């Protein structure tokens, strides 16, 4: 009963010949359109989905990736300077995030994980909102309905079910937008991701699962999560899948467009494995030298997602001094905006702790709030009392 048209014609990573052990293999079925040296490889299945990508748009994708890398570096610096409590770097995953996010329509709805700051940036989330939660000024950064992006999920894989449920709602509404779940390789071991695929397949919901296989779940390598390619898992649920070079912005964009188009036209869910690499630590609190080899990092540095687009632009004669200057200026401006937005972020007030637990008044909480206000007031100056309380 499941549509599995992608299983034909080589788009799917599934199939009986695909039984090699997971992490080391990068040949065969892995779709790559730009080589690490910046050479554009033609691909009969994927190329038709990129015909409208002009030279100018290629430059724009390059700019997005440079800017988000700069945001990421600035946020890491802000953490080191004590302005953020924590930050989860996306260094190395720029193509996976920008390529997929730039394929979306405004009315599509994204359910991201905490590392998907590049996706959020593309959707129009304000840069200071990217760090609001990491500074401790809120539980989450933004109103999901202003940008059609749910707040970033910290519970691994939980958002895959939210995306699937949202997609079931789209189906009921008769709309043609799509829900998109972003998660990592570790999440594919979670029950929620597997249940999401069961539900998505059963209801043929218009949802796209984008799995950024960055090879590491904190210290655990992807081979601990799966004995087969992650993309191959989808076929067990009756869900077509693609396995693409996640450091190749065009391959990711084409795959996402294929999946979105299928979902919009009643073809149900798709699973995309974007094979990439987390070049940095899990978060700023992590120390990857304790668990991974420096050689591995070096191998992946040679496959950098930004340098290969830069080389491609150069080969095409598009890497002008003007373009480079414009991209650098944009990155500088955004980094400055992020820094200023972070440092000048208004502090939450003590009684904000009680806000929004419920949407209507709650007698228990009202009483606790009343008692705590009286306690604060007993010090005279409530602001002073709050800072003393916090210092203990």
């Amino acid at each position, binding site marked *: 009963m499941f549509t599995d048209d992608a299983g034909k014609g080589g788009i799917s990573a599934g199939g009986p010949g695909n039984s090699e052990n997971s992490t080391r293999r990068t040949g065969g079925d892995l779709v790559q359109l730009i080589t690490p040296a910046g050479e554009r490889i033609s691909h009969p299945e994927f190329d038709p989905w990129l015909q409208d990508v002009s030279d100018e748009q290629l430059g724009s994708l390059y700019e997005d990736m440079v800017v988000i890398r700069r945001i990421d570096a600035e946020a890491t610096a802000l953490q080191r300077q004590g302005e953020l409590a924590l930050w989860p770097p996306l260094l190395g995953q720029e193509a996976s995030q920008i390529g997929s996010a730039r394929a979306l329509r405004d009315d599509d709805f994204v359910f991201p994980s905490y590392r998907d700051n590049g996706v959020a940036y593309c959707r129009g989330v304000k840069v200071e909102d990217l760090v609001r939660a990491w500074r401790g000024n809120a539980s989450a950064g933004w109103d*999901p*309905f202003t940008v059609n992006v749910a*707040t970033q999920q910290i519970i691994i894989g*939980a958002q895959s079910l939210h995306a699937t449920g949202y997609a079931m709602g789209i189906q009921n509404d008769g709309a043609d937008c799509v829900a998109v779940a972003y998660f990592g390789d570790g999440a594919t071991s979670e029950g929620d991701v597997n*249940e999401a695929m069961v539900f998505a397949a059963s209801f043929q919901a218009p949802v796209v699962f984008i799995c950024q296989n960055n090879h590491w779940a904190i210290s655990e390598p992807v081979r601990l999560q799966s004995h087969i390619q992650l993309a191959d898992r989808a076929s067990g649920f009756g869900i077509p899948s693609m396995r693409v070079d996640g450091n190749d912005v065009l391959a990711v964009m084409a795959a996402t467009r294929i999946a979105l188009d299928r979902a919009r036209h009643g073809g149900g869910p798709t699973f995309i494995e974007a094979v990439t690499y987390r070049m940095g630590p899990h978060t700023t609190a992590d120390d990857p030298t304790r668990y991974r080899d420096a050689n591995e990092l070096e191998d992946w540095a040679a496959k950098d997602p930004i340098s290969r687009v830069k080389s491609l632009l150069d080969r095409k004669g598009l890497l002008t001094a003007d373009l480079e200057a414009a991209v650098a200026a944009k990155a500088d401006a955004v980094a400055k905006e992020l820094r200023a937005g972070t440092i000048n972020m208004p502090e939450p007030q003590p009684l904000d702790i009680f806000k929004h637990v419920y949407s209507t008044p709650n007698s228990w909480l009202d009483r606790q709030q009343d008692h705590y206000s009286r306690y604060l007031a007993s010090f005279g100056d409530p602001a002073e009392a709050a800072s003393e309380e916090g210092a203990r």
Partner: protein
Amino acid sequence: MTQMTFARAINSGLRKSLENDPKVILMGEDIGALGGVFRVTDGLQKDFGKHRVVDTPLAESGIMGTAVGLAYRGYRPVVEIQFDGFIYPAFDQIVSQVAKMHYRTQGAVKMPITIRVPFGGGIGSPEHHSESPEAYFTHTSGLRVVSVSNPQDAYTMIQQAIASDDPVLYFEPKRRYHDKGEVDETVDLSAALSMEKARVVIEGNDVTLVAYGPLVKTARDAALAAADEGVSVEVIDLRSLAPLDFTTLEASVRKTGRLVITHEAGQSGGLGAEVAASITERCFYHLEAAPVRVTGFDVPYPYSKLEMHHLPGLDRILDGVDRALGRPNSLSGLEG
């Protein structure tokens, strides 16, 4: 007024909600063609279609997580958890997502999800079919928790729960599903007693007896038996377990000076502990005796031939009433 069973009353309330709001959608295992294992959703899929009364795969976290997504999309999902003991796979989605979403998003995303849970024992079931997990949820901020004790409340409160913009755990006493009662189906929801209010079921002067869900009937029977011995028991049906209606509880205890709380769930960390502690804090100088709890034991729910020892019955409740009144009781002579 119509005479109907408890299960029928919930069914009728669900029907009304489905009719009144196109965004209401029912989800659960076996709720469609079968009408639910207790037939609470009988006939609803036939009348409202498979898109509004959805048979789901057998995955409780999946049901709850997709309900979150549907709520994001503007729907009002009503989720059936088939049995109390099956709710734990959904615990993470309930506690980490459903309960926290409104707070996390500073009010931008509402979670108007109703989670129906047939709960409690007394029906001779195997393991995992007779539990009382309500305290896990009353301890979780962001959730509202109610339990109904009679067909009229079942009918009214299911609609109030569905209309609530906050998530509501709705605990249904499964051993009372076949009890009959009068139900006024023309009730005006906004005029009806708020879902957050407790109700004095029987007025009395000597002792306050607090119950909810399946034990409200037992508590009433106990009060009637006590009356024969000249003891006047005031019975309160909590209805709302979170938040608790301390206004009603305090007024009663200030009058009687004595408090007995009963529930099927184990004693430690149960609702009785919260009622006893809060009432002691608020009404200490009105209390004539220490609050008494008559509850299930702190054991896994026992095999069915022993369950009547576990469940507080009329005589154990009366024994607790005697303790509160300082009359001879099973623990007379013991300290503390």
